[in-house]
């Protein structure tokens, strides 16, 4: 463990073969759902054997840009995607979702609870200061400090202490063995910053002092983020681009027009509908890649009628998930059982899990067994601002009606929803989840009973709790796989969450942009390796 080879391998750029391998999951997924996609849509990242060239800038159009670039507080994925371009962490999780060295050159596992990290030497911050062990200790302790209020604290809670051994060496001691420790170090809430960067706690909201390949040259909240190549970047020769400008264009149809007119070089689409408008344009590279997000109907485990497991099964059986993917997801995604297929090693295939195929008769039977007579009232919440979720609800409501439910749709603002979740009052909701690269991250907070799990479904199963604790403590990957297979089976058997589909990552880029590789969580690591071929 802890070798540097993957980072070196990535330096060569992505070959077509490698990309095909990465995109292979799409092919399989599409074969299952029977949806054909022309090959050019998910290949063509770079010509084989092409050599990266330095120079040039690109404009990236985004539907939403953050109000603040504070590295340890900002939470939403849609705002965080650009962060790996200017902030870095001790480890990173590579394109195959395996933890690799980043600011740490290597690490030693002295025992299951003791890790020694050897830092890369000569790493400079954007302010010119050299990074050392004190900065790393300070940064992770800042996330861990309850006073900071970071949402990432829970990811690091297994850390008992961080000690500086010498200028370039640190010791992390854990409370108990934890399989996701190295992955969590790379989590989205973390970033190594200089020890003296924070005085009032507010300065990082608009200025970034990271070690990343780009530095923030200009930032206008919600409007524009201008990145310039960091000339002192530790990985010599990288990045290739001189700069990237992220421009907020809230209306996605304007993004489409901008791409066609050449005003924007690259877009990551949130909605399949708009991607459909550009996907056949040969002047652009249109990339679909499997993503680790999933659209899901989360049920309320302590509310009528979904507190009854039979009703939950009836809901799962009533929904035609292929139709939801086809209609709400524009067919641009993958069917999933519990975990999205992009989590290649962990996800169990749909056909090995119970309650996956639509069976209205069986759903009606289950309602009867639960002592309910149709129409059974069921409230489903829709969070405003997510078009694909709203479209999913239409299909679901229709499906559920056939099985004997009377669906009432309630549309709320996300602030209302989060507030109700914290107050433990949220009803069943259509949601979009993701960004987790390990099943522990995906399951523990959501399905482990309190006090460790803080969830809005309010569901519990002692056996699942036991398995989740075991999965967290077990370090052997194959043994963990067996544990999480069992968890997935149990979650499918008692579907407190009904996963509907995993939307693809959708990118459109000008053909001159070479070497882009989609990162499974949708974060923009791929822009580190991009160059321009005029």
């Amino acid at each position, binding site marked *: 463990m802890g070798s540097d080879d993957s980072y070196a391998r990535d330096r060569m750029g992505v070959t077509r073969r490698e990309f095909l391998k990465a995109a292979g999951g799409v092919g399989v997924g599409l074969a299952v759902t029977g949806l054909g996609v022309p090959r050019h849509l998910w290949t063509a990242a770079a010509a084989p054997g092409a050599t990266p060239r330095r120079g040039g800038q690109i404009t990236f159009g985004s539907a939403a840009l953050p109000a603040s670039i504070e590295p340890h*507080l900002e939470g939403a994925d849609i705002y965080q995607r650009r962060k790996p371009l200017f902030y870095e962490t001790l480890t990173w999780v590579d394109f195959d979702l395996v933890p690799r060295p980043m600011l740490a050159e290597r690490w030693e596992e002295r025992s299951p609870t003791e890790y020694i990290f050897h830092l890369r030497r000569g790493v400079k911050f954007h302010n010119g200061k050299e990074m050392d062990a004190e900065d790393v200790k300070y940064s992770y302790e800042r996330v861990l400090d309850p006073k900071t209020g970071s949402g990432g604290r829970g990811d690091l809670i297994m850390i008992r202490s961080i000690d500086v051994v010498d200028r370039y060496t640190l010791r992390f001691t854990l409370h108990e063995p934890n399989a996701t420790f190295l992955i969590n170090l790379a989590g989205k809430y973390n970033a190594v910053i200089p020890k003296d960067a924070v005085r009032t706690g507010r300065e990082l909201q608009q200025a970034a002092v990271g070690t990343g390949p780009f530095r923030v040259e200009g930032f206008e909240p*919600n409007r524009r983020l201008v990145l310039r190549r960091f000339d002192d970047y530790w990985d010599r020769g990288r990045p290739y681009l001189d700069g990237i400008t992220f421009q907020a264009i809230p*209306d996605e149809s304007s993004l489409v027009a901008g791409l066609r007119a050449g005003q924007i070089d690259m877009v990551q689409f949130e909605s399949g509908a708009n991607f459909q408008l550009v996907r056949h344009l040969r002047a652009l590279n249109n990339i679909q890649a499997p993503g680790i997000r999933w659209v899901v109907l989360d049920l309320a485990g302590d509310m009528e009628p979904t507190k009854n497991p039979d009703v939950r099964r009836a809901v799962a059986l009533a929904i035609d998930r292929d139709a939801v993917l086809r209609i709400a997801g524009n067919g641009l995604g993958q069917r999933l059982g519990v975990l999205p297929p992009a989590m290649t090693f962990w996800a169990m295939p749909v056909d090995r899990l119970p309650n996956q195929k639509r069976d209205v008769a069986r759903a009606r039977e289950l309602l009867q067994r639960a002592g309910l007579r149709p129409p059974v009232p069921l409230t489903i919440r829709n969070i405003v601002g997510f078009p694909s979720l709203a479209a999913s609800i239409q299909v679901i409501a229709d499906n559920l009606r056939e099985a004997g439910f009377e669906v009432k749709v309630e549309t709320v603002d996300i*602030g209302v*929803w989060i507030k109700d979740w914290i107050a433990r009052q949220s009803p069943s909701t259509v949601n979009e989840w993701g960004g987790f690269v390990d099943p522990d991250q995906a399951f523990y907070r959501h399905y482990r009973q309190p006090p460790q799990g803080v969830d809005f479904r309010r569901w519990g199963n002692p056996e699942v709790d036991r398995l989740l604790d075991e999965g967290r403590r077990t370090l052997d990957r194959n043994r963990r796989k067996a544990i999480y297979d069992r968890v997935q089976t149990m979650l499918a058997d008692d579907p407190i969450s009904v996963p509907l589909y995993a939307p693809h990552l959708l990118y459109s880029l000008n053909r001159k942009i070479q070497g882009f590789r989609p990162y499974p969580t949708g974060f923009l690591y791929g822009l580190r390796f991009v160059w321009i071929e005029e």
Partner: protein
Amino acid sequence: MRAYVLRRLLAMLATLLGVSLIVFGLMRLIPGTVVEQLLGQSALITEETLRSLRVFFGLDRPWYVQFGEWAWGLLRGDLGHSWRSDRPVAALILSRLPVSAELAVLSVAWSLIIGIPLGIVGAVRRGSADGFVRIVSTLGLSVPAFWQGTLLILLFSVYLQWMPSLQWIPFTQDPLGNLSIMALPALTLGTATAAMISRMTRSAMLDVLGQDYVRTARAKGLGPQRVLLRHALRNALIPIITVAGVQMGYILGGIVVVEDVFSLPGVGRLLLDAIFQRDYPVVQGTILVGAALFMLLNFTVDLLYAVIDPRIQYQ
């Protein structure tokens, strides 16, 4: 006159105080705070985290302390700092104001240029021209701005592919580029006002054209143009200006919608983003400045009456 101005200014101050209280209260009535927005929905949210962030944003203190602090800042001319970006609210508004001000001015200009002639034509040429004017103005009034904007984008950007720049360009830097960005939004925002003004002009002109002094002017042998513009229009202007003034309020509200549809980085967009993110200081500051602007506009319109019609005097 001076007493009147003073009275009006005092009334405006009182209104602003009321507005600030209402905005402050309303923001706190919307469920969810900046804290939940910041954490996002995949965070591991614990009571401890929530408490720390509430302290960070000062939300742990009683509302009257928060209001008092904000009001004290206002009195000293300080609108406070954005919670999310830590920028001064006044600077944020000032940086966005040119966009919105230009949009407002252009749309008012558009509505006057179109509305007044249309109204005059409708009043003078009864018959088919009048029917046309009435249909156009009814349409203009009933089509909502967001829909009209979307249709214009579809027509010009998507089908005809006449793409304006997606990046905002100041007028001083590139007038033509700037106007190409502003044309559609100003058109969208000005249409309803133009329709309103044309209707108002038409009925006011009809009213005035039947008056004795117009007949006298005609009898004196004045040319029709002179009668129409010097004698009739000038007297018809009072209700038109009133309507135009009231429509300013509509335009201030419409700016929010139109800036959203056309992705313009103006004050309206700033306000929307701030509401979504529950950035209270920015919402409060923006609405307060908007309210002040609206009142000043109304006040100016009232003063204009006296300029146009010497019979009107304020005491």
